[in-house]
């Protein structure tokens, strides 16, 4: 089963290696991982989609809390959070096919960010499902594509930092 978790970590060298190493050696399968800075410069936030066919998510969160640089771990339930992914996709677009692609871009509220003689690069953002749908429709016109990995925030006014840091070693 897939879970989306948000992990607040200290912004220090090697933290990503500590987290990804933990997942690797404990056999927790990372589906996607996105990391970036937050409103506080010394804190980074990771959004990790983890695939756990047999173990409870608790095994992952407890192990994460053992890392000294991990400050906070929460699970984001799909029903109560907003999830987004950003994709850049380069598609074959000879002049005769351009109109068709531009139409798709409009339907998906995507953006064309580069146009060449026979190719276009499209920026698509949205839920993972939306990105999949776009990929399917463009199909074998795709030359290459890249995704950021999923990021997510809970709905409503609460923040990950609202609850006291429940940390244990």
């Amino acid at each position, binding site marked *: 089963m897939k879970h989306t978790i948000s992990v607040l*970590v*200290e912004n220090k*060298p*090697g933290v990503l*290696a*500590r987290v990804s*190493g933990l997942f690797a*050696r404990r056999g927790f399968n990372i589906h996607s991982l996105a990391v970036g800075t937050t409103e506080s410069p010394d804190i980074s936030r990771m959004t990790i989609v983890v695939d756990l066919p*047999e173990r*409870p998510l*608790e*095994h992952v969160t*407890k*192990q994460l*809390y*053992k*890392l*000294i*640089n*991990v*400050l906070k771990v929460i699970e984001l339930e799909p029903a109560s959070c907003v999830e987004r992914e950003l994709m850049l996709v380069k598609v074959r677009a000879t002049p005769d096919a351009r109109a068709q692609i531009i139409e798709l871009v409009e339907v998906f509220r995507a953006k064309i960010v580069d146009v060449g003689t026979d190719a276009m690069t499209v920026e698509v953002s949205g839920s993972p499902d939306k990105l999949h749908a776009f990929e399917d429709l463009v199909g074998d016109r795709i030359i290459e594509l890249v995704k950021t990995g999923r990021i997510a925030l809970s709905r409503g006014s609460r923040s990950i930092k609202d609850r006291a*840091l429940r*940390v*244990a*070693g």
Partner: protein
Amino acid sequence: MTQATGAQALFRALETVGVQHVFGIPGGAILPAYDPLIDSSIRHILCRHEQGAAHAADGYAQASGKVGVCMATSGPGATNLITGLASSYMDSIPVVAITGQVPRPAIGFDAFQESDVTGISMPVTKHNWLVMHPEDIAQTIAEAFHVASTGRPGPVLVDIPKDVLQATFDYRDPGKIDLPGYQPVTRPNQRQIVEAAKLIAAAERPLIYAGGGIIKAGASDELLKLAELTGIHVITTLMARGCMPDTHPLCLGMPGMHGSYTAVTSMQRADLLIAIGPRFDDRVTGKLATFAPEAKVIHADIDPAEIGKNRKADVPIVGDAKAVLLELIKAVEAQFEKNGRPDYSAWSAQLDAWRRQYPYRYTQSPDAVLKPEFAIERIGELTQGNGIYVAGVGQHQMWASQYIKFQRPRTWINSGGLGAMGFGVPAAMGAKVAMPDKEVWCIDGDGCFQMTCQELATMTVEKIPVKIAIINNAYLGMVRQWQQLFYNERYSEVEFGWDVPDYVKLAEAYGCIGLRVESPDEVDSAIEKARGIEDHPVVIDFRCDPREMCYPMVPAGTSNDDIILGPEYDREEIEQVKAAHTDTLYDDDPDPDLAPAEE
């Protein structure tokens, strides 16, 4: 503010946290640190191999409860520490490793003796640091000792580039330790304590499953108090041996793959396991799906990640073992007062009957070849359990745990989780440095001994008079045992031979006293002779029966119900055990929810 070099700051910081001993070997990148060492109050023990330094720091910590410290240079020096750190990590032993690193500008350029030590040691340390500024050294050392020794203890590593050690700067004492992501929970949740006390009061066949956490928390007195208050028997895991005296009537000894019949079977039959500081290791549970099928589980551990990892806990308690036991004692007293004392007498009678019927057994005929169990048992008896006993890994380790009657915590030291052969000699050296007034015996195998015996030189030169009993059965005995039992007696690459090396000559070459014992009647006099030698390390080559097997045994991956008693038991006794385990053991079907399926 005073001017200092990074290296001076390092030693000032080490002195500030109370370090008295460091085990290490100098080399290129750590060289600057060895200069202020000359002026320091800290005693450095110059080891012969970094693995020895790491195991010595572990033995030092296990014997004393203090943080063990080891030091090595970059690259190969640091990588040689890894086995020791991995062992300390598995056994939750507080160790601080300090390593030199190539100078900052050279990092990442494959410099001479460069290795990514923080990367390499990440999976086997609780945390590690690469110190990039001399101003950070003192603070990092303070944090390192804090992390190593608090919460669930464990090894940490501090990697310092050579130019950081050499740099001169304005020294400042470390400030307050501020690690927002590290706040171990030590005080147990009161609601869970009450739940636990209720289960204890309602149980008919309870058992205390005491783990290494008891020793780390210094909770032996509290454990004894809970056991005596309730009359509940205690099993002590390999990492908890000595946390309760083996001579106490409520102590059932070691469970697990080579545990006593009573300890193993009592877990299978119990209706409540009161687990304080163990981690439900596979060597204890056997096949997890059939482990303790009738038992509800109270699991107390300072590390929340251990609770529910292998076995679901009905009552999880996060906390320090001592705090948990103190609260539990109060709650149980209140519970007994309210509802009366439960009657465990039928269960106790059953346990006592098993103990009488199925003790550890071996036969030593006076004129037959020396049995390893006999040599080990006599060491325990002649020292009256008052020594510190350190083991390597293998048959001799299991026999030592079975036959020595431990009386006190921190008197049994081994590499339990990692099972690192070669642990014994250096760890015994560390234990003796920590506890110089104690008689320290290393019970080692001939295979283990040869992995780290270079530390005999260290012991002689540094005057660390440890007694080493080599249980020389001429084989990698445990491997041979498995090949005999599970590989149709096809022995592959396990024979070492009795004679090479000549252990007596080897001992003498290293400046130790070497003794040889070839028959059972020489055992006592050799042990007594060794006990009388206090100015030199002593090595006794006990030439033992290579065919002796370690029993009882629960073969790997099988159920604890399939325990093999061994040839010392006659057919009738074995049949009785089999019948008991298949017919009457379980009144009801085990609750499938209690035992997660094995992966």
